[in-house]
């Protein structure tokens, strides 16, 4: 399957998408699949964020992925088929102290994905999001990975390969009737102690 990938160069999930057999491209609108990748998560209390750091986070977490997806979405609607998977973050699925900027951006993109599912459905276009927890190679600065592992029911961080496998499944015909879903890939972190007061202390 040909897949347009947009987002930061060198994102650990991008390499793994190629490894699971997807044919990746960085340009054009004719690929059947679209994967938008997020920036690296950063955590900081809201009152310690400079106003322009907040606006920059919103730009990178939601505005850039959305406007990168938009021409692909228009082409997919015209074509009558396509599947968009946005990789976002568990920071957007529930309020973490320290996770406000990334979380607001991730939540906004999750919502746009669901709107795309509403608007694309009648035209054969699906849209879903994958919200990873902390995964290897993508742990926010200052986060104690060991504590995060202890707090995860599966007792390990996700690998970027595990995130990519979920993305690939959502893109594939095996998920032909799945749309408008936000799928957490977090080892169960958010159903237990993902609500620790500050994600930097796990």
């Amino acid at each position, binding site marked *: 399957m040909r897949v347009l990938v947009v987002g930061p160069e060198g994102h650990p999930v991008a390499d793994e998408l190629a490894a699971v057999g997807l044919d990746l491209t960085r340009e054009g609108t004719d690929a059947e699949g679209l994967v938008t990748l997020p920036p690296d998560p950063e955590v900081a*209390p*809201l*009152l310690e964020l400079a*106003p322009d750091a*907040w*606006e920059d986070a*919103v730009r990178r977490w*939601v*505005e850039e992925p*959305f*406007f990168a997806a*938009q021409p692909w*979405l*228009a082409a997919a*609607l015209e074509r009558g088929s396509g599947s968009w998977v946005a990789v976002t973050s568990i920071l*957007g699925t*529930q*309020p*973490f*102290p*320290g*996770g*406000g900027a990334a*979380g*607001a*951006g991730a*939540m*906004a*993109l*999750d*919502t*746009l994905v*669901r*709107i*795309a599912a*509403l*608007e694309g459905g009648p035209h054969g276009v699906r849209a879903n999001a994958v919200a990873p927890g902390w995964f290897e190679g993508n742990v926010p600065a200052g986060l104690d990975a060991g504590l995060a592992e202890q707090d995860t029911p599966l007792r390990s961080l996700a690998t970027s390969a595990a995130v990519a496998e979920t993305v690939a499944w959502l893109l594939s015909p095996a998920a032909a009737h799945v749309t*408008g879903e936000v799928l957490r890939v977090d080892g169960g972190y958010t159903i237990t102690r993902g609500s620790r*007061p500050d994600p930097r202390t796990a």
Partner: protein
Amino acid sequence: MAVALVTGAARDRGIGRGIALALASRGFDVAVNDLAHEEEAERRVAELEALGRRAAFVPGDIRTREGNERLVAETVERLGRLDAFVANAGVASWMPLVEVTRDDWEHVVGVNLHGVFHGCCAAAEQLRRQGEGGRIVVTSSVNAVMPFSPLGVYGATKHAVGLLVGVMAREWGADSISVNHVGPGWVDTNINDPSPDFETEEKRAAARASIPFGARPADPEEIGEAVAYLVTSTYTTGAFVRVDGGLVIGKY
């Protein structure tokens, strides 16, 4: 003497008016903000004063941190302090995602997301300086929980604000600052005039019929009553209060 600042509160038909009136009836002096609409703002000030409260019009653009800091400073200068901040100003645009331009994005995200964030932070800084806690309420929408087309970017900003309210409530709880949001459904305000749902009387009738409780739009003061509860509550924080006549029950 308790003081509230309500953004986007000048319009005759607006939710902000209902909030300002409800707070004044609870004994708050009220600073009324809006981007323009001076004549309507004068009417707001007069009707708040008629309730026996002090009131001031503090015009200004809420999209930036500096803009909000100016409003907070002017409120404190004219009314003495700040106890409650209501981030009410909002805009909407109706269009499918593929038609959204950068200008549409800037407009909706600038007011509904950046404006709310910067306003709440500017208010929280003032409340921290005063050291006596405080109350913050955001007017979000039923769109904070329910994805709805063709209000995609609007809904994204409202969902994001809902997430942000939770983060703020957790981060600022230790300062005794509560942060909550209210979710109006259909209120017959200027913001809804361009909606395709209300463009004909037939469609308005269908919209009324879709509201389980009352089969009518909300009065702005009914939203104000929910805000007044959240502003006077001594324990509620991080909450979302839908005031929509049941419009979105089971729809998200």
